[in-house]
């Protein structure tokens, strides 16, 4: 069976998304958590926040002002059940952000880029809603892993369900951000490692672990928004 549309996929996955051990998310968190150690007084957007995994993490920190949007009502319903992020959620499209200009100091966009139809529009909107110097972290399934058959998806009654996605090369992502006024600080391929081994073991896939570690599993990009003419007050 072919991949299901994004809306259908996440509507079906939402009720048990948070309970599905995921080595890709674990690897991403292992990399990004130390980089998000100080978010005090920062306005943070969790773009395509899903069930609010990252939003909940940043709101754990004193003084963080986080909000999240997602296009999936089902994922947001799950997020709404988390007290730290209640009232901080909106349903919206990533290509048409419902935020005023220069609202954010930090943006997270985790495992969503491959579901975005119009990357250019999304990044142009990010340029609008971020302040000069704002940081943006973007992560997704690495295109090399996609090329080797890895997919975003879940098991529904033991049947594997894949969700439609368009793998994006680092070069395309960097080019799109650069042409919208962002500087690329890093773009890194992350391989799985021993901390992810127990997830494979629990899933009964311990024998696949070594091979899985040979591939870049997650692509993480880190951008900083440069000054733009529109930042300056007009005389």
């Amino acid at each position, binding site marked *: 069976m072919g991949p299901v549309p994004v809306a259908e996929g996440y509507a079906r996955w939402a009720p048990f998304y948070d309970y599905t051990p995921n080595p890709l998310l674990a690897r991403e968190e292992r990399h990004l958590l130390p980089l998000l150690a100080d978010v005090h007084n920062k*306005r943070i957007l969790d773009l395509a926040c899903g069930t609010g995994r990252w939003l909940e993490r940043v709101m754990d920190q004193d003084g963080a002002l986080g909000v999240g*949007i997602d296009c999936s009502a089902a994922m947001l319903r799950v997020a709404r059940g988390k007290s730290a992020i209640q*009232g901080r*959620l909106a349903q*919206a*499209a990533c290509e048409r*952000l*419902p935020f005023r200009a220069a609202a954010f100091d930090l943006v997270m966009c985790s495992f969503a880029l491959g579901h975005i139809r119009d990357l250019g529009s999304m990044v142009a909107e990010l340029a609008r809603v971020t302040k000069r110097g704002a940081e943006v972290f973007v992560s997704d399934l690495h295109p090399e892993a996609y090329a080797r058959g890895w997919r975003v998806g879940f098991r529904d009654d033991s049947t594997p369900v894949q969700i439609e996605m368009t793998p994006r090369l680092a070069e395309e992502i960097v080019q799109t951000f650069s042409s919208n006024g962002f500087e690329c600080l890093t773009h890194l391929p992350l391989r799985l490692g021993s901390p992810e081994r127990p997830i494979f073991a629990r899933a009964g896939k311990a024998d696949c672990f070594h091979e899985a570690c040979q591939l870049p599993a997650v692509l993480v990009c880190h951008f900083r928004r440069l000054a733009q003419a529109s930042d300056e007050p007009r005389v």
Partner: protein
Amino acid sequence: MISQDLLDILVCPLCKKPLVLKPGGESLRCAECRRVYPVRDDIPILLVDEAVTEPS
């Protein structure tokens, strides 16, 4: 209840003008284009297709 942090920065996704929470908190209205966006379970639905345009 929608957080004030969020209300402070919300704009119409189409015309980018500020949104105002209507009395009762069941919707947000754009004064510029008169689109009204529903709020369900404290989650604003800021999708253009879900908005209703009020008559002038």
